[in-house]
């Protein structure tokens, strides 16, 4: 029973990172119907920025974290401005956007390989806490940190989207960009803001990732991004609580598979769950059934 609880918490810790990245996928998809495949690589960018600020520039952790969040938000906005905006505003076919996103992803990976080399870089320890004991359970501190931070981030995001003016603009743009524009909402700004928030969350995810798995590679965004994308689809893409739920389910499923079935089957089980859920509920667990407007 103890082991089961620990494994579940391990899974939640891993799922928290998936969830934070999935939020970015989900928000961007919700507002412009774009699957931003470069999002997984933003987490890689965030990781390298933290590393650079902590090791090369010798800044304290909190400054590195803030720097990384700002840098990633800026990178997200730049990517949207340079790579996507013209396509979005000129009604380019969905497939062109998708290919552009893949192009951006490959560009980022190669750029960072060029700058930092292709081998893994080690990251310093961030939070030096001993394992946390809850009753007879012993849990890695990083697991608890991941869960707490991801929940806080989701609450913050929920407030931002539902309580703020900008959030209202986001929801309006998501519902009907044309009508939102007629109501005087600057949709370009709103979309850019969405990219900024999504990328900032990825930077937070990057910090948690580095704290849990202290190693960075330029191609680390590939599988991570794919898993987070699966989490977003599983939870219902476009839904913020859905992305969180999807991330947690994925993490726990991975952890249980590794400990009770076979580590060989980890990815098979994860993607199997996705297929089953989509067969039963094509919009994902918390996805809404949107009626086609005629």
């Amino acid at each position, binding site marked *: 029973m*103890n*082991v089961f609880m*620990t*494994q579940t918490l*391990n*899974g939640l*810790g*891993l799922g928290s990172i998936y969830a934070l990245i999935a939020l970015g996928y989900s928000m961007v998809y919700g507002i412009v119907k774009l699957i931003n495949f470069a999002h997984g690589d933003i987490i890689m960018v965030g990781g390298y920025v933290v590393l650079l600020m902590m090791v090369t520039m010798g800044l304290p952790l909190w400054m590195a974290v803030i720097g990384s969040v700002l840098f990633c938000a800026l990178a997200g906005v730049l990517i949207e401005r340079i790579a996507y905006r013209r396509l979005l505003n000129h009604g380019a076919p969905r497939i062109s956007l998708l290919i552009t996103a893949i192009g951006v992803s490959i560009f980022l990976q190669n750029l960072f390989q060029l700058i930092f080399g292709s*081998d*893994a870089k*080690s*990251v*310093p*320890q961030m939070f*030096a806490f*001993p*394992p946390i004991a809850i009753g007879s359970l*012993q*849990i*890695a*501190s*990083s*697991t608890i940190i991941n869960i707490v931070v991801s929940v806080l981030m989701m609450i913050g995001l929920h407030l931002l989207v539902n309580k703020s003016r900008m959030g209202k603009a986001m929801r309006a743009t998501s519902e009907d960009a044309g009508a939102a524009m007629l109501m005087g909402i600057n949709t370009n700004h709103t979309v850019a803001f969405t990219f900024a928030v999504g990328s900032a969350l990825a930077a937070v995810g990057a910090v948690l*990732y580095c704290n*849990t*798995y*202290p*190693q960075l590679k330029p191609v*680390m965004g590939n*599988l991570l991004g794919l898993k987070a994308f699966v989490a977003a689809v599983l939870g219902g893409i476009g839904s913020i609580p859905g992305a969180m739920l999807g991330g947690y389910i994925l993490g726990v499923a*991975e*952890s249980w598979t*590794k*400990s009770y079935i*076979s*580590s*060989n089957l*980890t*990815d098979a089980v994860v993607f199997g769950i996705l297929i089953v859920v989509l067969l039963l509920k094509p919009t994902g667990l918390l996805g809404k059934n949107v009626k086609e407007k005629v």
Partner: protein
Amino acid sequence: MKRMLATLLAAAMLVSMSACSSSSSTESSAPGGEPASSEDAAAPEEPPEEDDAAPTADGETIKIGGLAPLTGDVSQYGTAVDNAVKLAVADINAAGGVLGKQVEYICYDEKGDANEAVNAYNKLVNDDGVVALVGDVTSKPTEAVAQRALDDNLPMITASGTAEGITQGRPNVFRACFIDPFQGQLMASYAINKLGAKTAAILFDNGDPYSTGIADAFEAYAKENGLEIVAKEGYQTGTPDFNSQLTTIKEKNPDVLMIPVYYQDVALIAVQAKNLGLTSKMLGADGWDGVLEKIDASNVDALKDVYFCSQYSAESTDENLQSFLATYKETYGLEANMFAVLGYDAMQIMAAAINKAGSTDPDAIIAALGETNYAGLTGTTTFDESNNPVREAIITTVADGAYKFVENYKM
């Protein structure tokens, strides 16, 4: 029927064409004189020796062939072996040579390719008339050449071909390096005899033959010798997350945890094990070499009570090894690595065997190789019935953020 004939004809044409092109490529380099393109580039100190040897009759030098990838993806391995073999030849000749004659070492670049290696092998045997071969370097070309050497009954020793099949069923083929499974047995034996372990767990990479090979050998040896395996957990290549497997292992609380994987993964595993509060001693194989470069100084305390084996250690206090490392650095301006050390020993073992055989008769040399008892840079080497080396391994640990030599261990 007609179609079949056409296909056959086409196939025949293809075969003859490829045969033409391959033979022409070997010939084109042969008549042009001895210096193949590779030799010009890589062996500047070789030609004068050859000039000295040329006027004297063919029987005045003992010709030993070499094969190594001096260009291409794996050239860093090939260059290291080739450089070290040349140092060995210089030492041998300075000490009076072999059978009273000077040794002439002729090495061709095979670019890491099995076809090139076989072509170069043919040239060594047919044109140069070598009496023995020190090569090849990587497993695949070595395996291809080993088959030809078996057909020709040519005494052969590879410095670093680790694939188990290379020496199997080939009484004339030997190797200077450990094979992968041997390290598994060795570490199991070390855990039992030196660390007093009663229980062990294994964490390995499912997708890597190096890792699964050592893990299986460790498990088999442990079971036979009373070391209980309480958990054997695999992981998928490329995953950064080992928390689940480590939690399972921690629950079983084994005395030792064997992690036969490469250094990048070791760094991740060690930190996660520390964060989970796992206290088992950690064991590893030569893939661990380099782990300190992949773990930040702030996390290096994750590597305490770790023991891994390797074929040599630069920290070793052995005088011959230290003097070799110094000479190598002086001659080539590079640090010698494991391949260089093994290359040196491979050449010395071959030379010793020819001396012991008392002639260049292949059967006599092969018999002498089988009875090798050679004290070299990597320790005292003898060969088992599969022509794999039996000797002590170097056990290394990490202390205060640096590798530390523990002892030589022979199972």
